[in-house]
């Protein structure tokens, strides 16, 4: 594992260097980016090679004399490491030009410092093999990412985001504490492997608590409230990392605990699956309703976490129903989607970052027609959208294809599993459709049509490193989408690391599936080429005219008359108004000839809505009622002492 630790050291060292060299900004950025990306590259290579082989690497350091910091790198860890380092690498590259306009060198340095800590912590989280190590890295991860979220703390909104995130991650960590506390309490060992020897009831408890804890990090539906606030607040390359890989550490936690518990109850599968479907559908519905580009992407992360969980749930149900094929398909789909999502989500966030960087606004309805000036950004963003909508021939389709397959395998099963699988399939279908609507909306409103405000007029897309990393990611999305067979072994390694009792899984059937995907993608390409040929044949020597858009008889169309994102989503959101209530504010029309009026509409997240009324307010009320204790009168204070003694004397 030395190579792994070397990578970590390089990364952290780079962070420290950045802090030291904060004064001379250019040099600092250069060094930081260099060493961070060097470390990530090393890590990627390391993880990739480890994924080739199938042996487990362990390392352990003595800690506070009696305890030990244990690390273990099996297929599962290596798989996550691969994604983490890959995305971090590209994000680091991206940041080089993204952070260039920052006037505060010290803050940029701090940003790189905490970024390096975040990368290291994520890597350590997925490699830790006992409770102490895990919680340690986990908390470091939360802390460093918090500082990254409040990078622009001048705006109250970002401060609130940071606060929400801080509290949520801490409470989540507490839930994990409980889960691990139960483990230690019953086994007396800090080692993860001890989990296997728990009693059934304990296993249920451990799973539930850790699911809540990790779910709050991953952004599973009721616990996702922090996510759409925090991710947009951070600088875009950070959002890319957070959305791309950091929330996956939550998924990692769930999977790891599940595999360690080694307990084939269907209940876990059902819980995960239902949670997945709910977060998937609601996530994309809320995404559809957002007017903030990055927040919309954040919600779509909730959706994709949902998809991942569906895959996971299918896998778990398959295991508990004793259906190996279903199990492997589900898990494989889950892992594949983890990888894919980390690719296209970071791509999309980078695109959004470019837009924000150049136009200075995140409001979707303020943009438009960017594709004309931002060709590469637009193209890559469209590729990303196609991928995230799970359309062939892009990588999103591959993972969903696997998950569908697994779910259909479940159709043949008994009652509950059957219903669950129907739920999963229909859920996936609806998610797919909504995602398509959601991303056509973004592309249509942000990149196409005419600029709606001056912010979107004559922009450019300078910044080589930003473009490069976006291009790489887009290329990856396409290549994986066409040749999934090349990477199928990675998720498979992860699956076989789960310790399901299937021995080593035969890859042939999956190669066949991926082969089919490749073949059909090829067919599609062929037909498209054919049609293009046909078209050019028809167009040879034809006159191509240019004119304004046909306004159906209206001759003075303005950019303001375009369909806005809100209106585009309106009818769909109406359908889901039960889960996504819409609040509308507009000043009443006054006077005989009303001149100016305004209209604001916002989609409410029910989880956020109820969190305030059901949890925060009661708690505050309760504690407010207690405040009179300290009411300043010394006589009462002495009375407390007397009271304490008298009460205690009763127990003698």
């Amino acid at each position, binding site marked *: 594992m030395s190579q792994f630790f070397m990578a970590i050291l390089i990364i952290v060292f780079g962070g420290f260097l950045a802090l030291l060299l904060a004064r001379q900004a250019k040099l600092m950025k250069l060094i930081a980016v260099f060493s961070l990306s060097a470390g990530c590259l090393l890590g990627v290579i390391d993880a990739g090679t480890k994924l080739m082989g199938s042996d487990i690497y362990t390392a352990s350091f003595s800690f506070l004399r009696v305890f030990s910091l244990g690390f273990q790198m099996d297929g599962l860890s290596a798989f996550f490491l691969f994604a983490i380092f890959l995305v971090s690498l590209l994000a680091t590259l991206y940041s080089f030009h993204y952070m260039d306009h920052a006037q505060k060198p010290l803050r940029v340095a701090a940003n790189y410092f905490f970024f390096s800590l975040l990368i290291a912590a994520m890597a350590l989280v997925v490699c830790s093999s006992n409770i102490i190590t895990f919680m340690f890295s986990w908390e470091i991860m939360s802390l460093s990412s918090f500082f990254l979220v409040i990078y622009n703390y001048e705006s109250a909104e970002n401060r609130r985001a940071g606060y929400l995130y801080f509290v949520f991650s801490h409470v989540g960590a507490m839930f994990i504490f409980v889960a691990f506390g139960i483990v230690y309490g019953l086994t007396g060992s800090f080692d993860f492997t001890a989990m296997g020897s728990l009693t059934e009831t304990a296993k249920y408890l451990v799973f539930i608590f850790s699911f809540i804890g990790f779910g709050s990090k991953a952004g599973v539906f009721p616990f996702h409230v922090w996510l759409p606030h925090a991710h947009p607040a951070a600088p875009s390359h950070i959002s890319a990392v957070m959305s791309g890989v950091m929330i996956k550490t939550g998924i990692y936690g769930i999977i790891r605990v599940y595999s360690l518990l080694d307990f084939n109850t269907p209940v876990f599968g059902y819980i995960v699956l239902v949670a997945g479907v709910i977060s998937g559908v609601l996530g994309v519905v809320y995404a559809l309703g957002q007017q903030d580009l990055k927040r919309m992407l954040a919600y779509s992360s909730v959706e994709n976490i949902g998809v991942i969980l569906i895959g996971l749930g299918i896998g778990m149900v398959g295991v508990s129903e004793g259906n190996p094929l279903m199990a492997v398909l589900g898990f494989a789909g889950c892992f594949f989607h983890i990888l894919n999502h980390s690719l296209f989500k970071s791509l999309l966030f980078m695109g959004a970052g470019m837009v924000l960087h150049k136009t200075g606004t995140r409001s979707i309805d303020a943009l438009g027609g960017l594709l004309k000036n931002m060709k590469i950004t637009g193209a890559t963003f469209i590729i990303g959208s196609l991928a995230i909508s799970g359309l062939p021939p892009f990588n999103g389709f591959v993972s969903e294809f696997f998950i569908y397959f697994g779910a259909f395998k479940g159709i043949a099963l008994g009652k509950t599993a059957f219903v669950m699988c129907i739920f999963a399939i229909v859920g996936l279908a609806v998610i797919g459709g909504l995602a398509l609507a959601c991303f056509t909306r973004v592309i249509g409103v942000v990149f196409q049509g005419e600029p709606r405000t001056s912010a979107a007029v004559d922009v450019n897309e300078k910044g080589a490193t930003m473009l490069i990393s976006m291009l790489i990611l887009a290329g990856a999305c396409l290549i994986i989408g066409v040749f999934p067979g090349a990477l199928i072994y990675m998720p498979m390694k992860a699956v076989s690391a789960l310790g399901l009792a299937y021995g080593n899984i035969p890859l042939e059937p999956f190669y066949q599936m991926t082969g089919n995907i490749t073949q059909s993608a090829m067919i599609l390409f062929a037909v498209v080429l054919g049609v293009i040929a046909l078209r050019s044949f028809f167009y040879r020597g034809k006159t191509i005219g240019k004119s304004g858009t046909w306004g159906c008889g209206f001759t003075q169309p303005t950019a303001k008359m375009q369909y806005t994102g809100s209106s585009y989503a309106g009818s769909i959101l109406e359908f889901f108004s039960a889960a996504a209530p819409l609040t509308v504010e507009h000043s009443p029309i006054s006077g005989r000839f009303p001149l100016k009026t305004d209209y604001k509409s916002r989609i409410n997240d029910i989880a956020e809505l109820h969190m305030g009324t059901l949890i925060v307010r009661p708690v505050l009320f309760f504690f407010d009622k207690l405040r009179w204790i*300290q009411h300043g009168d010394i*006589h009462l204070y002495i009375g407390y002492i007397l009271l304490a003694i008298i009460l205690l004397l009763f127990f003698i």
Partner: protein
Amino acid sequence: MIHPVDTLLSLVLLSVLFSFGTSRLPGLIKVVAFQGVVASMVPFFIGHDMSAGGVVFTVATLLIRGIIIPLCIYLAIKKVAIRREVEPIVGYHASILFGLGLIVGATYVSRQLNLPAISQYLLVTPTAVALLVTGMFFLIARRNAIAMVLGYIMMENGIYLVGTTFSSHVRHIVEFGILLDVLAGVMIMGIILQNINKTFDDVDTALLRTLKE
């Protein structure tokens, strides 16, 4: 025949009852002084052997608690013109009733405990308990800061009684401790009282309620 210790202690109990009824500070101070003197005399009559050092200690205690401290406080309130009311939170009649009930209760409680060292003295335990609770009572039920200090002294008397009579082990060190405690504690309290009086022209603790949530 009744043992001298019990005679003394009955006097102490009497002083306790008086203190409940007293409404003026000088009166209260006198009561406390008397109480201090009598309580400090108890060790002489109780069975434990008295070393020379013990005698010195006891006498010193007697002087300090019976005379010096009360005198200081008395002069203090004589010098600065502060209100002489003890400003009760619980009224005098209620206090007296409480006192009676307290003594009965204390006697009852002390029946429950078995203390071989002092089984032959009937009144030791009741008096000690009564003094403790009275002190607490004054701390809780009197707004006048000086009255509270006096209550504190009474409480210390109670503890002194317990410390000196219940067990022979710690006699001197306990006495020493209490001595130091009362001396230093009351002195510092005195200083603070001075300041309070300077700042607020009063020692009514109702004025000391600004620090709260």
